[in-house]
């Protein structure tokens, strides 16, 4: 089926060229980083993880959100999602691929990455994260490919694929839970040391991921003959809205515990992120934009008039996606390092190369997504014609 990605319109090749250009720029920056060391980034002794790990964390959520179309279709026989299940699965594939690339980009000794397998260490959450992510990647490629192949041949998917599909559902929950455990089990990092981190991760993931999927469906509708259908999109909107509201609820719970208990360690990072701590508030504008976009988008998703129109729906999804990306892709990871264990406040500014590498990985993810979607949609279009 891969050959279907090799034929396309000028617009398709133009988009591929843009992605390749960003990938090349990212690769060049990575060569520089590889030769110099991670000192080329803005990270420091105090803020020892930066945008790479933050993107990784955010994208695990996008990957996990594939389950939001897989579960209703396969467990509840919700046929409307049948058309877009493959889109959810391939979005998960692209997202997990980005996650793995971001981890590699963040390693000080990338050539030793396999030490995680050579010296397996079950007490390390990173060991488990490596396992769940790779298995999830395999499950989604495998299930997506087999089901699509059957669709191409116009036969029912083989029965033996079912167990893999059923396993992939709790597995999606597991990848984001384990990723939350990377943070939620560290003593002395009060902002992360909260039992609600995993549910909060899942809520924001199930809002942000399907929001992106809605946007992708709307784009696909314009550039191909494939239409996910109003019903499927509106059902996704319902999922996004509930998840976004639950996420807001969870965030407010964090605020309550921190500020009602009045324990300094619990308030410090929230202060730093939203109001400024000891006059330092590098991320305050970001977090306020995130809050504002979150509120506007949820209102737009709740009001029927803006929810049902495709243009306003697209705007709502974009705002929500940006809001959640800032919250998790910037605030959560970088904010967690402030203040440091010695209660020092260190600012973090990603370097030019760091940003280029980040864009390069995103471009790689979109490249994978584009190729996979191209194949999937070509199969679906053929079927529509015949």
């Amino acid at each position, binding site marked *: 089926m891969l050959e279907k990605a090799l034929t396309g319109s000028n617009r398709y090749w133009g988009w591929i060229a843009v992605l390749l250009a960003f990938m090349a720029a990212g690769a060049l920056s990575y060569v520089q980083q590889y030769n*110099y*060391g*991670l*000192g*080329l980034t803005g*990270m*420091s*002794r*105090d803020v*020892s*993880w930066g945008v790479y790990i933050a993107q990784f964390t955010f994208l695990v959520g996008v990957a996990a959100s594939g389950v939001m179309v897989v579960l209703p279709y396969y467990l509840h026989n919700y046929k409307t999602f049948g058309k877009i299940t493959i889109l959810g699965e391939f979005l998960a594939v692209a997202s997990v691929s980005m996650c793995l690339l971001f*981890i590699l980009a*963040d*390693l*000080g*000794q*990338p050539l*030793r*990455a396999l*030490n*995680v397998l*050579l*010296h397996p*260490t079950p*007490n*390390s*959450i*990173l*060991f488990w994260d*490596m396992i769940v992510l790779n298995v999830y990647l395999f499950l989604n490629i495998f299930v997506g490919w087999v089901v699509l192949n059957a669709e191409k041949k116009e036969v029912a998917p083989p029965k033996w694929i079912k167990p893999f599909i059923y396993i992939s559902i709790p597995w999606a929950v597991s990848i984001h839970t384990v990723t939350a455990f*990377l*943070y939620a*089990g*560290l*003593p*002395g*990092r009060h902002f992360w040391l909260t039992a609600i981190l995993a549910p909060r991760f899942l809520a924001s993931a199930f809002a942000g991921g399907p929001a992106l999927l809605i946007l992708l469906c709307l784009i696909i509708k314009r550039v191909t003959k494939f239409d996910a259908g109003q019903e499927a999109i509106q059902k996704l909107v319902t999922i996004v809205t509930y998840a976004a509201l639950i996420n807001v609820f969870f965030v407010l719970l964090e605020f309550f515990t921190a500020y009602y208990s009045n324990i300094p360690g619990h308030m410090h990072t929230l202060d730093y992120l939203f109001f400024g701590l000891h006059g330092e508030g590098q991320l305050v504008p970001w977090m306020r934009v995130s809050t504002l976009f979150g509120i506007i988008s949820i209102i737009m998703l709740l009001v029927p008039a803006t929810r049902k129109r495709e243009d306003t729906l697209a705007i709502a999804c974009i705002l929500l996606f940006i809001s959640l990306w800032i919250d998790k892709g910037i605030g959560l990871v970088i904010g*967690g*390092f402030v203040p*440091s*264990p*010695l*209660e*020092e406040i*260190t600012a973090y500014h990603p370097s030019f190369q760091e940003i280029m590498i980040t864009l390069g990985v995103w471009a790689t993810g979109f490249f994978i997504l584009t190729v996979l979607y191209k194949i999937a949609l070509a199969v679906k279009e053929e079927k529509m014609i015949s």
Partner: protein
Amino acid sequence: MDIKRRQFLKIAGLSTIAGIGAPAAFNLLLKGQSPPVSFASSGAGAEAAHEAAPTGVRLGMVIDQRVFDANRGLAQRCITACHTVHNVPNFDNPKDEIKWIFKVPYEKAFTTMSHYHQNEHLHDSRFLVLCNHCDNPPCVRACPTKATFKRKKDGIVAMDYHRCIGCRFCMAACPYGMRSFNWRDPRPFIDKATYNKEFPTRMRGVVEKCNFCVERLAKGLQPACVEACGGSGAMIFGDLNDPGSEIRRVLDANFTIQRKPSLGTMAEASC
């Protein structure tokens, strides 16, 4: 802080402990030393929080802050001794900085302590901080390759620089901020005049920290920082599980505190 405690601090200054179980050979070295300081006896008892692990050798360190307060240049000599013997590079910017042992004000070393009003003495004091070689080290739990590990025979939290993949999970896990990362090649920043051929230099992309001088202990030497204190008794190092050890006598006779005791790491940093 009540009056009694404040008076006690004024008289006695502060003493700090960092550390864990030591090999027996090591205790011998401590024998024959005169008691580090004559502690003012006071009503303040040792906290139950730093009970040692029940069995085996458990190396520990007490830092007698009174000695450091009386001798302001001593802490820097300890730092220099450590950083020289371990070929710790000297970067002049905080972003690339690598440090195994360093001086911080009281409120940074002991973030969980609070005082309505710090007396002048405490305000001016600088406390040495280093890896606490925790009984329950979060960094060891976090490491995905066992590149950082706890030595069974003496409790030292050690590192294998050749196995470390540079994921920096241990840095996020350490609640004391005691780990450093080689953000760039450290070798050009090691002072050639004092380069120590007997200790490996590190490469870029790996984490490092205080190793309680395992390489010196193996030769029957004291840790470099302890040695730098000479006979002053500013640092007392030994087996916390040996009731006859000097460190135990010091702990018995003095009020001591640990860094962030509520986290359950059994850090053995005591004042």
